[in-house]
């Protein structure tokens, strides 16, 4: 298939099931401290949560817009908020993407070159035509360089759009029939 599989283990290594978070889980600590009564975080709260976990390392923290699309990526019921299990899933995915980026950003500058972005995308398992890749690169580069936050935004959108497509490609043919309303809805929600 042209797109990568989704056999990512959720954080904690339990395949497919999400047990109740153990009290010692540091993720749970960060999350509940910020999530409040409803047990869910919005974009601004997610931004604070992620900053606390230090996942960005020496890179700039994620922008609010990137946090918003991260929520959208996992937000099956369109509530605009993220629960704890989704947060853990996100964290695992972010670590993977960060590793990809760090491998390429050897001088630790916080940016990679356009052609290196292509390499990253291919390393993640996406098989995309050069033309599609060019669209993506143009969208995310600033003066020929791609910053970590934009890189993550790109990965989020790639995954969201791929999910949109896969969910409709039930016969695994690599082709989907989109009806207009559905097309607009699922694409705008990304």
């Amino acid at each position, binding site marked *: 298939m042209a797109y990568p599989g989704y056999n990512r283990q959720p954080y904690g290594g339990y395949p497919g099931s999400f047990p109740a978070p153990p009290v010692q889980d540091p993720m749970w600590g960060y999350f509940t401290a910020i999530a409040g009564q409803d047990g869910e975080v919005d974009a601004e709260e997610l931004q604070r949560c992620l900053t606390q976990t230090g996942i960005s390392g020496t890179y700039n923290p994620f922008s609010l817009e990137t946090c918003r699309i991260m929520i959208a990526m996992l937000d099956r019921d369109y509530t605009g908020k993220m629960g704890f299990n989704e947060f853990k899933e996100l964290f695992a995915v972010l670590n993977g993407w960060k590793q990809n980026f760090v491998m390429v950003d050897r001088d630790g500058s916080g940016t990679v070159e356009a052609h290196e972005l292509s390499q990253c995308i291919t390393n993640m398992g996406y098989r*995309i*035509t050069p033309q599609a890749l060019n*669209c993506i690169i143009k969208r995310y580069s600033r003066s020929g360089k791609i910053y970590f936050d934009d890189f993550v935004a790109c990965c989020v959108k790639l995954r969201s759009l791929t999910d949109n497509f896969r969910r409709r490609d039930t016969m695994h043919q690599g*082709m989907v*029939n989109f009806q207009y309303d559905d097309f607009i*809805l699922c694409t705008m929600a*990304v």
Partner: protein
Amino acid sequence: MAYHNQYRPPHFNNAPPDQSFLWNIFQRVDKDRSGAISDTELQQALSNGTWTPFNPVTVRSIISMFDRENKGGVSFNEFAGVWKYITDWQNIFRTYDRDNSGFIDKNELKQALTGFGYRLSDQFYNTLIEKFDRQKRSQVAFDDFIQCCIVLQRLTDVFRRYDTDQDGWIQVSYEQYLSMVFNVV
């Protein structure tokens, strides 16, 4: 149910402004007198009614729409188009901001988009507001309203290009889907 040919905000037939009027404005906006209005200069000249900078993404969309030479700015020749475009949007915004709050709330947005020809679900409007409302007031300011309409329009245009028999359905491969959509969303 297929979609109609409209999906565009109404065209306002104001008399074209005279050249000296436009030139006056152009000169004031082109602060560095480079002969072209850059993204930054246009952003500084526009107001979204919130005392925060005009959405830079919207500014970029507008400049690229009228910048025929890909120079990253608009010359005086191209500026007339920009002026009309923004004036049209101001009129539309004022039309649909029925309570004159300076913001378009979910119901007003529904009326606006339905007026342009879109048929979208109620829940979708929640998604739209969530996505475009940069002020976090569950309503859209002038710049975010324009941005929302631009994105809807572009996605519709790209869909229409693939829908050659105009039946409201397209068949695309994974790569086509990504290329279609990636430079719009």
